[in-house]
């Protein structure tokens, strides 16, 4: 069984002069433990695809089944709850609540899940340690560098114990050293904890780190290779 399974997934934006087929009949299967990059030129539909898989956007046609659940059949509040408990998100920026510290940001999602305090405290500290931020737990996002903020976002995404983590261009705003660092952490979490990561990127060095690379063009999968 696949973690993610899409069939003939399409998204058409019909609000301009000509309809845009942002995602056009995508059949995609993602297995557990994957470390997969979605690549392709700008406008090829990476964000649209990830948003639909993450239950943030609804398809115009086709189905997305996550862990056996059909997302397109869920109502809005059901979807929010599903996202909370099954999907981790790392965005390009604005991932964190500005008024909360690294520790509180990571803990926040577990509070939404109503996890007991003991579990929260232990998990937050171990996750921040894993992303190398043990000495920054009481810092607010504004006191952290871009790379550090993204690492908090990864810790936050993992805190919820999701089925998989979606990251849309997580390194786009980072310098190459921070980008490599973030990728190292993600790769290690994938290997050691078995966390499934699906991320989109333009960065060749990031692409090189992925085990599977799916290339999109005009909303269609044109290449799907598994490397090393």
């Amino acid at each position, binding site marked *: 069984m696949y973690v993610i399974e899409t069939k003939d997934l399409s998204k058409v934006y019909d609000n301009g002069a000509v309809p845009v087929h942002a995602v056009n009949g995508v059949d995609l299967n993602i297995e557990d433990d994957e470390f997969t990059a979605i690549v392709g030129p700008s406008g090829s539909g990476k964000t649209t695809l990830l948003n639909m898989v993450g239950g943030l956007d609804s398809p115009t046609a086709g189905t997305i089944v996550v862990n056996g659940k059909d997302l397109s059949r869920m109502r809005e509040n059901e979807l929010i709850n599903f996202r*909370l408990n099954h999907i981790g998100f790392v*965005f390009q920026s*604005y991932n964190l609540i500005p008024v909360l510290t690294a520790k509180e940001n990571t803990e926040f999602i577990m509070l939404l899940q109503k996890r007991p305090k003991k579990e929260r405290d232990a998990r937050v500290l171990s996750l921040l340690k894993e992303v190398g931020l043990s000495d920054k737990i009481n810092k607010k996002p504004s006191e952290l560098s871009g790379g550090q903020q993204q690492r908090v976002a990864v810790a936050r995404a993992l805190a919820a114990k999701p089925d998989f983590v979606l990251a849309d261009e997580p390194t786009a705003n980072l310098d190459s050293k921070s980008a490599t660092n973030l990728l190292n952490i993600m790769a290690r979490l994938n290997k050691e904890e078995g966390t499934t990561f699906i991320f989109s990127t333009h960065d060749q060095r990031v692409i090189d780190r992925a085990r599977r690379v799916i290339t999109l063009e005009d909303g269609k999968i044109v290449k799907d290779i598994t490397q090393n």
Partner: protein
Amino acid sequence: MLIKISWRNIWRHKLRSAVVITAIALGLWAGVFIMGFYFGIIEQKINDVVRSEVSHIQIHHPDYKKEDFNINYFIPDGLTISEDLSVDTLVQYTSGRVISMGMIGSAKANSGVRIIGIDPEVEALLTGIDNKVIEGAFFKGVKRNAILVGQKLATKLNIKVRSKVVLTFQHINGEITAAAFRVAGIFKTLNTTYDESNVYVNNKEFRKLVGENITYHEIAILLKEHEYVDTAAEKYKGLYPGLLVEDWLEIVPLMRYMTDMMDQVMLIFMLIIMLALMFGIVNTMLMAVLERTRELGMLMAIGMNKFRLFNMILLETLILAMVGGLIGLILGYITIEYYAVKGIDVGIFSAAYESVGFSTKVFPQLEARYYIQTALQVVILSIFASLYPGRKALKLKPVEAIRKI
């Protein structure tokens, strides 16, 4: 955690929040103080009325008022009842009065008056009418048939201390009787209407003129404590089932209307203040929501449901309003308590105030329940104020908010 977030969010824009909080604090401060001011006036008015006019409890013949104060309806056993009451544990003083409607005439003019026959000594203790004498003396300096008239009446009749006046009234046997009196003193209360229509004479002398068998038409009772009123009224109603026993609120129901009406006026007044403040809060919260689109979108994306999102906005509004509200209430409390002791001189308006029976110094006061009521209004206000900004937040689509990232 939501409280923590809301609290810190408020201080993200220190100046903006401080402005709203100050506005709320000032609005409530003014509102609470004005409430205290008006309730102070009313309380004083009530005190004046009770202390110098109606006393706490009055006893009459059951038909006395119905029969238009006909002198035939005096209190049977009035003298004994008055004696008994004066030694009752709840009672401070009692005063029995012989009352008749009549005319007062001077060389210049005539005027309709209520002639009140009193025992000067006890009446002085009960209503303090002796302190209201501004010219002449309280039943002194005139040997027989002394009379006390109000200043307004004295002016109207053009009479002075020691002037002779003639009282005309009906004897209990139906004959119209006239008797000469001499002005011993001129009094002035806070109520000029009262001064114009009431005169005091000695009840023993007056009884001889209207009918020896009359006891009292009215027994007024001043209790040791204002709080005894309900207990005492109930007790005497049980003790004298054949008589009309009334407490001050039954005698002057107008007083109750005054308090009730003031309650309503103040409620409307506060609501208007609140409404004005609400626009300020709505505006601030709307700004707070709109500038946080991405953050709120992110929160919905990672799994914060609409209920919690709305709660967060509501909480932020509540805290904002309550901080301001609390400051306003405390400032209001302090000023009211300060002036409750010191008093506010409203001397400039004194002429106008006195004519309707108000004192010239106001001692503001406000019962605890009005503070609680105001605090509750602030809470309700914040809930209303958060509806629109909250709706805006709920309408956000996470994808669109995220796209802007």
